[in-house]
């Protein structure tokens, strides 16, 4: 019984920057409908939105899978982008390879990955150069 979960899948498209974040938005709506507390909902929303934006600006999009359990939400963000060469460096606040045009859109401060870590209870990054990146996050519901 405790293994029952709601599973949501999204294709994250990078063609259109305006639509970036729509997967996170749907997840937020769904969690609110399930009556989950607003601070938990916000932690999931922030962690996933940062990851979704990263897939759009750094990796040409990808796939997001979200599993909602009674005690936690698991988020898997998988892309076939360029990969991350040095994960420890990428995790540092302020480290960003985003070009100027991305900054003009309001992103690229190098705050996303550390913010994903802050808003999740567990986070694991698997990345291979030239193959892609998969990020696993767990947010426990309080």
């Amino acid at each position, binding site marked *: 019984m405790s293994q029952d979960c709601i599973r949501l899948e999204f294709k994250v498209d990078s063609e259109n*920057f*305006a*639509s*970036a*974040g*729509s997967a*996170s*938005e749907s997840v*937020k709506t769904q969690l609110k409908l399930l009556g989950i507390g*607003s601070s938990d909902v*916000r932690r999931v*929303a*922030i962690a996933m*939105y*940062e990851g979704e*934006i990263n897939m759009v600006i750094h990796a040409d999009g990808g796939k997001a899978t979200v599993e909602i359990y009674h005690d936690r939400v698991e988020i898997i963000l998988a892309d076939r982008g360029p990969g991350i060469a040095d994960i420890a460096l990428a995790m540092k606040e302020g480290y960003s390879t985003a070009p100027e045009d991305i*900054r003009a*859109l*309001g*992103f*690229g*401060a*190098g*705050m*996303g990955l*550390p*913010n994903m870590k*802050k808003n999740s209870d567990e986070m694991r990054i698997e990345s291979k150069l030239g193959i892609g990146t998969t990020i696993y996050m767990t947010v426990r519901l309080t």
Partner: protein
Amino acid sequence: MKIREIAELLKAEVPVCKDKIDEEVYSACAADMMSDVLAYVKDQAVLITGLCNPQVVRTAEMMDIRCILLVRDKKPDSVILDLAREKGIVILCSPHRMYIACGLLYKAGLSGGEHCV
């Protein structure tokens, strides 16, 4: 402070969600980088920004921000307005620059909350 009072003080237009301008808000934050809003904002109801794209509305929605104040006469396009309408987020458009807009609101008693940008 009511959103209506913010609009009056800053000579702002209200292109969307006019029905919500009698709601009370207690704190605000200001940033042009949405990265900073996502990383530092905590429970501020108003976002003051000079950035004008759909991600401003998405970021506000993720952070439960209820009112976006666009400074420097930025005119939101229909994509932005539709998204804000759908999310029930009030947009205000003021001719003031960022510094002046923030100063006027702060002077009028709108605080920065706890961990403001």
